[in-house]
């Protein structure tokens, strides 16, 4: 770890805060150019904040986003891009929902049943990510390309399985198709939030646990050290006896397993069945959140909360006559400007370090000084 000095803390915060301010300015400019009032927008979002329901929903979204971000961050730590969190999460949520809702599960005790659902989701997520790992270590196929393909294949597979003839059934009274509803014995009870009818997902504790484990494994175990070492310098890791292929397989499997958890809070906490209304694109939100939080367990939690807050207050914008997509624009600008800002800060640090070294070494004598 780098030593904590006021200067390094300031530099560390400069990038994310700067990016947020920049994104705010860009969005204000876009709103002003298109004839909408930025003040009205902020006003509408602030009004929404006063509703407890918005906050409860924001926390729930953040739980999901945090899990997705951790899944992505495990890969990032060793320079693996798991773009496939999206597909892994949907395959896992779908299949584990089918398992949890199956009739033979109703006899199983609640705790065991929930555990089985979660383990099944982790296994499915890991297996789907494992395909990409296998292609990478045996055939050298870039995980970016293979997971993009696997995401799309997952989309079609899920829509194939989500059919009344297979794993799904039509919901009575609506045209929504969903897996068989998980009855009370398989659900995770929510936590009441004061003043709101929506409850906070009980599985928020799972997200916290995953965050703690992520921190522990990365900073306190040999495996975590080898993971980071591989990410920092592949050749140095190989030289010190790390089997990079093994690390790729392990980290992809773990990343996939965490990706499998992404759908669990919503599945066991509010939907109780996998339906087509499960949000797509969570894997990409995970990438954004992991970037903004710099793969740090606490940083990602803060940025997941920010993301969840932005998404849930956006709902109030359409009512105010402002397209809610301004929030999507803002999120995109945040991602782009935060990574650009990190790079600029890094370059600044390198230059500052070089100058410091130069000062410490002193000035070399010029030719005239030597000869005189």
């Amino acid at each position: 770890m780098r030593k904590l000095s006021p200067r390094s803390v300031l530099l560390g915060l400069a990038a994310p805060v700067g990016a947020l301010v920049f994104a705010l300015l860009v969005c204000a400019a876009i709103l002003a150019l298109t004839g909408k009032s930025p003040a009205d927008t902020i006003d509408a979002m602030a009004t929404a904040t006063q509703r407890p329901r918005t906050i409860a929903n924001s926390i729930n979204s953040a739980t999901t986003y945090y899990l997705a971000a951790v899944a992505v961050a495990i890969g990032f730590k060793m320079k693996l891009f798991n773009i496939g969190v999206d597909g892994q999460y949907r395959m896992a949520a779908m299949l584990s929902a089918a398992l949890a809702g199956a009739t033979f599960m109703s006899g199983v005790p609640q705790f065991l049943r929930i555990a089985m659902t979660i383990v099944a989701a982790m296994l499915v997520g890991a297996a789907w990510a494992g395909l990409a790992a296998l292609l990478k270590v045996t055939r050298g196929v870039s995980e970016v390309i293979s997971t993009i393909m696997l995401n799309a294949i997952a989309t079609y597979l899920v829509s194939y399985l989500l059919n009344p003839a297979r794993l799904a059934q039509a919901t009575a009274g609506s045209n929504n198709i969903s897996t068989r509803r998980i009855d009370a014995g398989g659900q995770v009870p929510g936590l009441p939030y004061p003043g709101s009818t929506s409850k906070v997902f009980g599985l928020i504790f799972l997200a916290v646990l995953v965050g703690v484990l992520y921190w522990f494994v990365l900073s306190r175990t040999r495996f975590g050290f080898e993971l980071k070492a591989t990410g920092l310098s592949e050749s140095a890791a190989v030289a010190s006896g790390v089997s990079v292929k093994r690390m790729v397989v392990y980290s992809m499997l773990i990343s996939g397993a965490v990706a499998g958890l992404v759908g669990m809070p919503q599945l066991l906490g509010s939907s109780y069945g996998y339906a087509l209304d499960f949000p797509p694109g969570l894997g990409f939100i995970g990438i954004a959140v992991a970037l903004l939080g710099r793969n740090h367990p606490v940083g990602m939690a803060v940025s997941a909360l920010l993301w969840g807050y932005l998404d849930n207050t956006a709902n109030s914008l359409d009512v105010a006559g402002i397209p809610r997509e301004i929030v999507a624009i803002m999120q995109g600008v945040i991602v782009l400007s935060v990574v650009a800002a990190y790079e600029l800060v890094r370059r600044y640090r390198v230059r500052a370090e070089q100058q410091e070294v130069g000062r410490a070494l002193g000035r070399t004598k010029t030719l005239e000084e030597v000869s005189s």
Partner: protein
Amino acid sequence: MSVGGLAVGLEVAPADRGKRLSPWVYALVAVAALVVLSVVRLLSGATDLTSAGTVQAALTAAVPLAMAGLAGLWAERAGVVNIGLEGMMVLGTFGAGYAGYQWGPWAGVVFGLLLGVVGGLLHAVATVTFGVDHIISGVAINLLAPGAALFLSKLYFSDAPGGGQKQSPRISDAPKVTIPGLSSLLADIEAKRWFFVSDLAGVLRGLTTEVSLLTLLAVLVIVGTAWVLWRTPFGLRLRSCGESPAAAESLGVNVYKYKYLALVASGAFAGLGGAFLAVSSGQYRDGQTGGRGFIGLAAMIFGNWRPGGLATGAGLFGYTDAMALRGSSAVHALLLLLGIALVVVAVIQYRSGHQLLSGVAAALGVLFGYWYFSTDEVPPELVGAAPYVVTLLVLGLAAQRLRPPRHAGEPYRRGQGV
């Protein structure tokens, strides 16, 4: 393929210039493919396999894919991986919708292209100037562009006559041309159902009847790309930035400039692809691209980072798309085709000494064959996955023949080359 990241497991094919296949071999392969198609048509009775209607639909579906693939080609040849293609296509569809309904299809095409260029420039600023990782920038563009398009669509299309929050008013289609006389002659031959001859007639009729001028433009652009990138000094310099930017720099090539130009071209073609999509379907709709940017990327990989190859890939994927649209019976025959193709791959791999790969390919081939003979139809939900499955199979089973630009995806800063 060497997208930043880890080098583990990578084996790069040697550039064997001596084994370039002549055009005649390609022609022979095309004829052989058509023979196989007509055999399968006779066996399965799926006349739609080679009908003019299918070929026409395939052509329409293939053009946006080819444009997306071309956009990927320009970017990767200059060393920048562009997975923001999807987002740039979305910008193109919006641009075409916005200008198209007011000033006609050609204005739509130009406007879509310009909006694509905006996306490409954004990618260039992020990756070249600010040194942002290419994948991250691409992901950000894919988040940003659909949001921006929908934002603008709500602003400008909601009150327009015939428009809505998520769709533009109608755009008139681009003019279409038919070669007079030939078309009806070919239709007569096609109706005879002769082995091979009728199939050939069907394919030719599809290619010469009611062809949109936009399709012709796409063909011109692909041929033009092949010429510019492989036959001009400009193209050589651009490709050198993708193979070895440090070497290019040492020879006085302004790598930043070429990367910028390549990304402008990349954005333009992606925007063009989006515009084709909007104009040929008559309007802009939210979510219209439906992952076509990624299929374009797949087509480029399938085509081994070459214009002819990516056109073939786009044609193939467009063909599956068209089959899916035209009902399941013909799609079922595709299973058999895929099985045959896998067995061919198995034989080729066995002859070049890769027993294990050959075994895997053969097993998969037999599996697809078994699937074909044991069922009567393919579930329609699964047909759309075909391009992705095929690309994974190509990557997994024939990766040693692929040769991506060596420095694609790797960061480059002036004066810090290795």
